[in-house]
């Protein structure tokens, strides 16, 4: 077993604040066979496995990145054609498909909806280490939904890199409720004038789950925009690190950046660390961030319980209502139901 320092923040702060990176005990899977239980639902795009091996700007960590470039057992490149497209990729972990090392690359030439789902149909220890690279060409609307519903014996590492060209609009929805240690890195390179990126995330931790979330948005083009909204809840002894950076680069005049993270603590042993950073070398910008932590609102609880609902159910209702603002944006009704059911079970 090797101790890896992963998910470095773009700017370091004091070491004893314990947030610059996360230390993870990493064991290389003994056997990496082809991952067969993958389903791709799409009928129009050009699909191959010629993914780019270009180094990531940030990523979860160089060792994990190298592992992907050298030993990926699943590679998917999708170049969308000229019509509006819906793409769905589902990875089903089972007893014969325990380890996934994958690369997905989406080049959106036109309006595109992409949904990537990781599911466990086994309780055995699994491993996922992946890269999702998306590019939104000029004037394109790209919606990406990533759902992690892996079992709690699975280490999950995901690096996302997103590039936006002029007038593009990219909406990312990330549902991060699975995994034992779940390390996710999101880097948005907002180059094009007027490009806009919306990132919404839900995380839910229970038992001894660890969530390490590192989001970095670099605003480079004029009138660019980033909006980050993260809603989470922690039960039992779960632990979460949220690192969110909005970096206004020189020249991004009239750019706007907003970041909001809210963590509901459902246990007195849960731990929440947040580092919401604003970095700025441009004058004519507007940047805001806010974070909040605390238990479920007592007035809301009282109101619901006064209507005959138990404490446990009332807490679930409040958490789900916070999450629902994000979940309701998902267009696939079946998936929406599946996520809500999963959250319901994990809140029990």
């Amino acid at each position, binding site marked *: 077993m090797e101790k890896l320092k992963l998910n470095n923040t773009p700017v370091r702060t004091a070491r004893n*604040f314990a947030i610059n990176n996360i230390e993870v005990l990493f064991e290389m899977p003994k056997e990496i066979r082809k991952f067969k239980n993958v389903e791709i639902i799409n009928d129009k795009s050009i699909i191959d496995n010629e993914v780019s091996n270009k180094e990531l700007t940030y990523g979860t960590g160089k060792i994990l990145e190298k592992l992907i470039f050298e030993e990926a057992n699943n590679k998917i490149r999708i170049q969308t054609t000229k019509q509006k497209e819906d793409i769905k990729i589902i990875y089903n972990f089972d007893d014969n498909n325990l380890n996934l090392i994958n690369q997905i690359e989406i080049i959106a030439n036109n309006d595109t909806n992409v949904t990537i789902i990781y599911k466990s149909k086994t309780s055995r220890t699994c491993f996922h280490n992946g890269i999702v690279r998306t590019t939104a060409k000029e004037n394109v609307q790209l919606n990406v939904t990533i759902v992690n519903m892996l079992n709690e014996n699975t280490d999950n590492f995901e690096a996302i890199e997103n590039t936006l060209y002029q007038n593009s609009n990219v909406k990312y929805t990330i549902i991060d409720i699975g995994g034992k240690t779940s390390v996710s890195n999101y880097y948005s390179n907002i180059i094009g004038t007027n490009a806009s990126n919306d990132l919404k995330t839900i995380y839910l931790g229970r038992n001894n789950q660890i969530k390490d979330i590192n989001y970095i948005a670099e605003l480079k083009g004029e009138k660019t925009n980033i909006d980050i909204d993260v809603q989470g809840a922690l039960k039992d002894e779960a632990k979460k690190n949220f690192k969110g950076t909005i970096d206004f680069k020189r020249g991004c005049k009239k750019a706007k950046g907003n970041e909001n993270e809210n963590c509901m603590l459902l246990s007195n042993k849960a731990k929440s660390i947040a580092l*919401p950073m604003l970095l700025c070398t441009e004058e004519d910008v507007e940047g805001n*961030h806010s974070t909040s932590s605390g238990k479920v609102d007592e007035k809301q609880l009282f109101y619901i319980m006064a209507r005959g609902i138990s404490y446990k159910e009332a807490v679930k209702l409040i958490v789900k209502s916070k999450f629902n603002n994000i979940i309701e944006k998902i267009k696939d009704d079946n998936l929406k139901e599946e996520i809500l059911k999963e959250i319901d079970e994990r809140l029990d």
Partner: protein
Amino acid sequence: MDTHNLKIYNEREKMKTQVEDINRNIYDIKNKDDYEIKIQGLNREIVEEISRLKNEPDWMLEIRLKALKMYEELELPTWGPDLSELNMDDIATYVKPKSKLNSSWEDVPEDIKNTFDKLGIPEAEKKSLAGVGAQYDSEVVYHSMKEDLIKQGVIYTDMESAVRDYPEIVKKHFMKCVPISDHKFVALHAAVWSGGSFVYVPKGVKLDFPLQSYFRLNSPESGQFEHTLIIVDEGASLHFIEGCSAPQYNKVNLHAGCVELYVKDNAYLRYSTIENWSKNMMNLNTKKAIVGKNAQMDWVTGSFGSKVSMLYPMSILNGQGSKTEYTGITFAGGGQNLDTGFKVIHNAPNTSSVINSKSISKDGGACTYRSLVRINENAKNSKCSVSCESLMLDDISRSDTIPVNDIRTDEVEFSHEAKIGKISDKTIFYLMSRGLSEEDAKAMIVRGFAYPISKELPVEYAVEMNNLINLELEGAIG
């Protein structure tokens, strides 16, 4: 102004408002580098020599030597501003001025007295202070306090006298609030510390006027390592003001002071700092307070000077129901990298903290707000609210916000808000539509930005702070 005019106003080429640098005429007065003793560099012999010159007890020398070992072992911070320009071999660790400790300004040597006169210290003492300490290079040259406070048992003296006259109190508290292992520059401080103030306010004694210590570094290529130890006993109350300045030299100077504050149960302490070091100063200061049951610790900080600052005062809320407030403003001009902020540890139930930080960056200056809020498992029903605003006055400057919020219990209310940007044209338009000229509107906005800080300072110092941010308004900000 109607919509059409607003459009024209927005579109025309705007002249930038010039926010002038701090007028440093007073602070830049250089006296001849005239000293009795000047010791350059850092090693065991030097540390022993400083201790010998001060005729210290063995226990203090032991702390110094232990700290020196720690300094050699600890690494430079791997984060924050670049400190590579600092070479300890070039820094004078001890500079004894040609003056003994005096209790009358008349006895202070002429050139030193003139410096403090121009800084307005004796005048402020007469008007609004209960006591004054003045340090010149490594030694305190003046210390005085009002008679009635002496009668009430208040102790306000230089640190060397405190080590000699109150060894038990000092031994119990010295480098206990800030352990020598905290970081490299704390260890350096403990090895070569010299000067500083010691304050003890007995139980129930409330001081109506503040005490002030002023630290002046005159000697080039030297360090100032003053130690401030304040104990406000149960139910007592104190406002302490710290001022710092130095003339500008071409070579690097170093300030690595240490402030240890003990606010006992039901006590109150306000610690105000106007820091106006010259732009060749590395300001690597450490300040920490331990706050008792139902006690309150307030920090008011204005950081205007120095080339590099790394300064993060800290409150440790150990007593149930204890409170802390931090109000700080940082102003970074050309060539300055000011990394400032606040740290608070909630260590007991029902504790609360309020953090309010503002920064202004201009002319290529860099401001960083860096902080830590930690609410521990036992701090049930604690509250913390953080607000952080940064104003960018041009596009060659830099402004970063790096706050860490570490929450380890569910029974808390925690919120953090930060904003970054320029002064909005809409606000200027709003004020102008109410009859203000463009210049007055902008002046009002910038002064309003700094107001939450200046209102916390005693009137005399608020005026000084407003003078420090000398606005010369011309055209628009932004």
